[in-house]
């Protein structure tokens, strides 16, 4: 249910202003969901819908980018923009535009390799870049270090938390847990994904696929004698849409 300025919103009227397609799907989920979604004004609501749609777009872009899968040890970067840290993260080089460096991961995907959590962090950055445009993006994100849910920028720190939510909404981060993973492939202990809507999820290296396919893949990478199946957890990761929106509105 949507609340604007403390009052229940006229969702019929609002709906007409939302473009058809994924944005309207997101709106419908918010409007008809069990949760209470409160916004100070309509702009705040539109921003969340737009950012969710851009997260989905960025996931789709990443699936076509050629970004490789690797463990932290074998991580790879384009050294023109990033430095690979000893831990296996990507550190933005001094003097390099964050916008250019993030864009390069999508343009020159095969030059990069990382695991599933870092890949999702990259999606959030790209989604914000699509909205903020390079000037604002570079001003907000001056020091980027990409390394799973660590070293997150303070404006994105919430994406590293998983919480219970009343509804699952397209653009949410979800997680498939593989409790009986093979000890030789701990990188497959689970899969971070983006909810693409319609029962489809994007996971790095798996592409856009169904929950059953992801579970099948993870189950194929379990230890001998495993008894427990991989499963989709009922938790979500979400950025702080309001904070990110405020940054956008105050810099327009």
């Amino acid at each position, binding site marked *: 249910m949507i609340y604007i300025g403390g009052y229940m919103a006229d969702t019929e009227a609002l709906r007409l202003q939302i473009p058809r397609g994924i944005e309207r799907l997101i709106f419908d989920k918010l409007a008809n969901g069990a949760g209470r979604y409160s916004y100070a004004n309509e702009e705040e609501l539109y921003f969340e819908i737009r950012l969710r749609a851009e997260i989905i777009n960025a996931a789709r872009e990443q699936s076509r980018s050629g970004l490789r899968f690797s*463990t*932290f*040890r074998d991580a790879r970067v384009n050294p023109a923009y990033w430095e690979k*840290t*000893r*831990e*296996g993260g990507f550190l933005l080089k001094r003097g390099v535009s964050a916008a250019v460096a993030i864009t390069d991961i999508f343009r020159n995907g095969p030059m990069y390799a990382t*695991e*599933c*959590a870092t890949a999702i962090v990259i999606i959030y950055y790209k989604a914000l870049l699509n909205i903020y445009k390079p000037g604002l993006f570079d001003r907000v994100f001056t020091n980027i270090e990409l390394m*799973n*849910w*660590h070293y*997150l920028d303070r404006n994105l*720190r919430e994406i*590293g*938390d*998983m919480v219970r939510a009343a509804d699952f909404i397209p653009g949410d981060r979800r*997680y498939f*847990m593989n*409790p009986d993973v*093979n*000890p*030789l*492939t*701990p*990188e497959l*202990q*689970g899969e*971070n994904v983006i909810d693409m809507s319609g029962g489809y999820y994007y996971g790095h290296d798996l592409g856009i696929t169904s929950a059953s396919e992801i579970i099948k893949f993870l189950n194929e990478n379990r*230890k*001998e004698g495993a008894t427990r199946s991989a499963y989709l957890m009922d938790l979500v*990761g979400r950025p702080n849409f309001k904070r990110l929106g405020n940054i956008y509105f105050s810099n327009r």
Partner: protein
Amino acid sequence: MAHLDKTRYRYGNERFRRMFENTLDKNLARAIDLVNEEGLYFGTFYIIMPRFFEYSYYEKLKAKLKNCVKICEAILENRVLANEELKDTYKWMIETGFYDDGMDDKFDEMLDKICAIYIQNYNDKSVLSIISNAIFKRNREKRCKQNLLWAYFQCKDIDCLKHILGYINSPRKEDYLLAAELLGIKEIADDRAQRAKQYEEYKKWLQENEGYFYYTGYENQFCQSPKYFEVDVEAKYLCKKISTHNAAPLEPLSRFELNALTDFRKLDEKTKIALCEYSHKKKNQSEYEWEKFIKSPIDEQIRDTIKNRGII
């Protein structure tokens, strides 16, 4: 430390490897005696091991080193070998291998995998201190620790937290920050005395809840600050110990306990927590009073908790 270890530390890995291969080619008996010497480190053997993939050399190795070759070959082929016969070899690989942690990426990766297999298969907590020390060392050196951390928590035992807790008192900031993160301490003091206090509080909390913890399965890949263990409020309410592996009671619940849980589960989270804390404290104070309490209707228990929470 064996003669070959000393030679390696003196001449460096590459020169040592060449020297050993030279001996192997020219004086096989001497080379075999040297490699079979008691006290050899896994790191030293790892450097010369490829030569022992050849059967004519392999068959001359003592049993432990033969097992080591088998284990490493299996890992390189993405297979897991784990049986009782290999246990001591795995343990030796961990105990002596970490002296050379950081030797190179491939060796470190091998160590991570050995730890994961050992911890998952042998239920031996004696290696936890070695592994936790290695995790903190890698953290100080900003090296890859994620898979080792994952292997460590595969133990699914509360001892994992106890070993980490000691690092709260470390003078090194990177140590106590990592310890706080792994223990789920949100705000850690920089002041040493304050940290010592936080250490004591956490230790007390661990002791108070011993027997009620279960492993969540949450790891670094899943979220920023995973809570590796949580307290099971139902277990604490009934004062019944559970398995950290799957949160199942160690002893089957009686009909009465199952009934008590039915009412308890209907409560909101806040009341559940208050009730389980009160129940646990009451049991420690008087078994007789606790029996009366736990057998009273749930509404009465809540009233009792509200009334006496501050007193017990």
